[in-house]
C-alpha cells in the first residue's frame, strides 16, 4: 500500500525553502560561529581559540555599557509606543471615510526607509537650521543633539516613536475590529463603564496582537542601527552606541572578527531568549 502513497514526491516542493533558509540563515550563522571560536592575524590564517572571545566579551565593560544602553532604549520605546499605539487605535473611527484617511496617515511612516528617517530627523533636529532644533532653541531650550547625550537620546527615541508607533496602532486596530458588535452591545446592556469595556473586552481581545506587537518592536529595536548611525554615528561620545553600532565598530572599525562574532552570537541568543520567555509567558497565561 505504502509504495502507492500519492504524495511521496511532496518533499521536492520543500527544497526551495530549505535552500533559501540555508543561504540566508544557516550558512551565515555557521560562518559567524566559526569566527567566534578562532583568532586571526590576517592572511586567512586562523587559530582555534575555544571560548576565549565569549569570556572576553562577557566580561568587558564596553559590552556591558552597550547592552545597558540597548536595554534602556528598548524599554523606553516599548513603554511609549504600546500605550500610545493602543490609545490612537481606540481613538480612531470604526468605519466611514475618516477611517481610510487615518489608516493611510498611519501607514505613511512605515513606508519610509530607515536611513531616510535618520537623515530626515538629522536635518529636522539640527539646532541651527532644523525646524525642530531651531524652534526649541528659540524657545530658549538649550538643545543640541550633536553635543548633549540627553538631547541625542530624546531625538533617537522621538524618531523611533514617530517611525514605529503606527505599527502598534495598525495591529491594535486589527485586534479591535475583530471584536463582534455583540460584545459592545452586551456591555451596554450590562451597564459597563467605558473603562470596564476597555479592561474586560478590548484589552483581552487585543492581547494576541499586542503580544505580536511587543515581540516585533522588541526584536526590531534590538536590531536598530541605521538611525543612530545616520544621526550621530553613536555619539556624542558613546551615548547612543547601541549594541549593533558597537558590533559594527568592533567588526569593521577594528577588524576584530573573533570578538565581533562572539558578540553577535551573544546578541542573537539574548533576542531569542527574551522573545521565547515573553512568548511562553503570554501564551501560557492564555491557556490557564
Amino acid at each position, binding site marked *: 500500500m505504502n509504495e502507492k502513497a500519492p504524495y511521496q514526491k511532496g518533499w521536492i516542493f520543500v527544497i526551495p525553502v530549505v535552500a533559501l533558509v540555508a543561504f540566508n540563515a544557516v550558512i551565515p550563522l555557521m560562518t559567524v560561529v566559526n569566527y567566534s571560536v578562532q583568532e586571526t592575524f590576517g592572511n586567512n590564517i586562523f587559530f582555534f581559540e575555544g571560548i576565549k572571545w565569549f569570556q572576553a566579551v562577557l566580561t568587558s565593560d564596553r559590552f556591558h555599557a552597550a547592552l545597558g544602553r540597548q536595554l534602556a532604549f528598548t524599554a523606553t520605546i516599548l513603554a511609549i509606543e504600546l500605550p500610545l499605539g493602543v490609545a490612537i487605535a481606540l481613538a480612531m473611527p470604526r468605519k466611514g471615510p475618516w477611517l481610510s484617511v487615518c489608516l493611510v496617515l498611519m501607514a505613511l511612516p512605515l513606508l519610509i526607509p530607515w536611513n531616510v528617517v535618520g537623515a530626515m530627523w538629522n536635518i529636522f533636529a539640527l539646532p541651527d537650521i532644523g525646524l525642530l532644533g531651531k524652534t526649541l532653541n528659540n524657545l530658549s531650550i538649550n538643545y543640541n543633539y550633536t553635543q548633549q547625550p540627553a538631547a541625542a537620546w530624546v531625538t533617537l527615541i522621538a524618531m523611533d516613536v514617530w517611525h514605529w508607533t503606527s505599527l502598534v496602532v495598525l495591529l491594535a486596530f486589527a485586534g479591535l475590529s475583530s471584536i*463582534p458588535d*455583540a*460584545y459592545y*452591545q*452586551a456591555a*451596554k*446592556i*450590562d*451597564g*459597563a*463603564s467605558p473603562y*470596564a469595556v476597555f479592561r*474586560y*473586552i478590548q484589552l*483581552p*481581545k487585543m492581547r494576541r496582537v499586542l503580544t505580536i506587537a511587543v515581540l516585533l518592536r522588541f526584536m526590531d529595536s534590538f536590531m536598530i542601527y541605521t538611525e543612530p548611525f545616520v544621526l550621530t554615528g553613536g555619539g556624542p561620545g558613546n551615548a547612543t552606541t547601541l549594541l549593533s553600532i558597537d558590533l559594527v565598530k568592533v567588526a569593521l572599525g577594528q577588524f576584530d572578527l573573533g570578538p565581533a562574532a562572539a558578540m553577535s552570537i551573544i546578541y542573537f541568543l539574548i533576542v531569542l531568549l527574551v522573545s521565547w520567555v515573553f512568548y511562553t509567558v503570554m501564551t501560557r497565561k492564555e491557556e*490557564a
Partner: protein
Amino acid sequence: MSKITLHNLRHSYVPQPAGPDDWALKELNVEWSDGGAYALLGPSGCGKTTLLNIISGLVHPTKGRISFDERNVTDAGPGERNIAQVFQFPVVYDTMTVRQNLEFPLRNRGMPESEIPKRVEEIAEILDLQDMLPRRAAGLTADGKQKISLGRGLVRSDVNAILFDEPLTVIDPHLKWQLRSKLKELHQRIKVTMIYVTHDQIEALTFANTVVVMHEGTVVQIGTPVELFERPQHTFVGHFIGSPGMNVLPCDLVNGAPHVAGQPVKVQTKASPKANGQRLEIGVRPEYVRFADSGVPAKIIKVSDVGRYRVVETRCGEERVNVIVNDDMSLPADGAHLQFEPAFTGLYADGWRVD
C-alpha cells in the same frame, strides 16, 4: 417588569426612505403584556432582529414610539431601559471567572457587595452552573458560555424584559432541547417578559405562548401555536409553519362559492366572498387533505415514506398539493381525488385570510 408597547413603529436603514423597499420595518403596532413569553418568528431578513434591537434600545427607530408601561422610552439608551439581551453568539468576558461574569452587571449597577453572592448563587443554581463558578469563562464549551450570557441577563432582578436573539444557533442539536426546556422552566419561575427571536419554528412554538410571525418587515400574525397551525391569517404563515407547509391553491368563485379546478370546495368562512379583483386562494394543510372517490382531481407524483407516515406529492393541474397519509391507509391507483376538511380549509384574498 412592564408592558411594552410599540406605536406606529417604522424603521429604515436608508437616510431618506422613499419606496416601501427602503423600510426594514413597516408600520408596527404591537403590545407585549407583562410577564408573557413571546417569540418573533420569521425567515432571515424579515426585520425581526431590527425590531429586537429597537426594543432593547440598540437601534433608534426612524418613526414611531416605544413605551414601557406608560413611560415613553423611545430616546432612552439600552442602559436606562433595564433590559437584558442574549445574543446569537455567546458573549462572555474571557478574563473573568464564571462567577465574576455573573457579578458584572450587578457591580456595574452598584448593588451592595453583601447581596451579590446570594443572587449569583441563586442564578447559578437555576442554570446548573454552580460547579463552574470558580472556572475561567474562556475555557467553557459553547453551551456553557451561552448559559453564562443567559445568567448575566437573569441575574438582575429589576429587568423589564429579557430578549433572546437566536440564542441556540451555536448549540449542538442534542443539547438544544435541554436549553429550550431550561428557558421555558425559567420563564415559569421568574415570570419576566421574554421575547425570543428565531427563524426556527420549533424553537418559537416550543418557547412562546404567543408567536409574532414577521414577513418582509410586517407582522403577518400574532397568535398561539394552535392558532398559527389551524388558522393561519396569511398564506405565508401557512407556508412557513409546519413541514411540509400549507397547500395554497388558486380558486374561482362560481355563484359566490369557491371552486378549485371546477370542483366546489367548502371553506371555513362566514363572509360571503366577493371577487372584486382580488387574487383568491384556498389554503389547506397536508394533514387535512385526504384521498376520496370524488372531489378535486389530482395525480400522484411522488411518495416519500417518512416512517411514521407518508408524504404524497400530487399535482392538481399545475398546482402542487401535498397529502399526509398514515401508514395503514392505501393510496389510490390512479384517477385520485382530493377532499379538504372544511373546518381547516381557509379562503385567502391577496394572501390574507377571509374570516
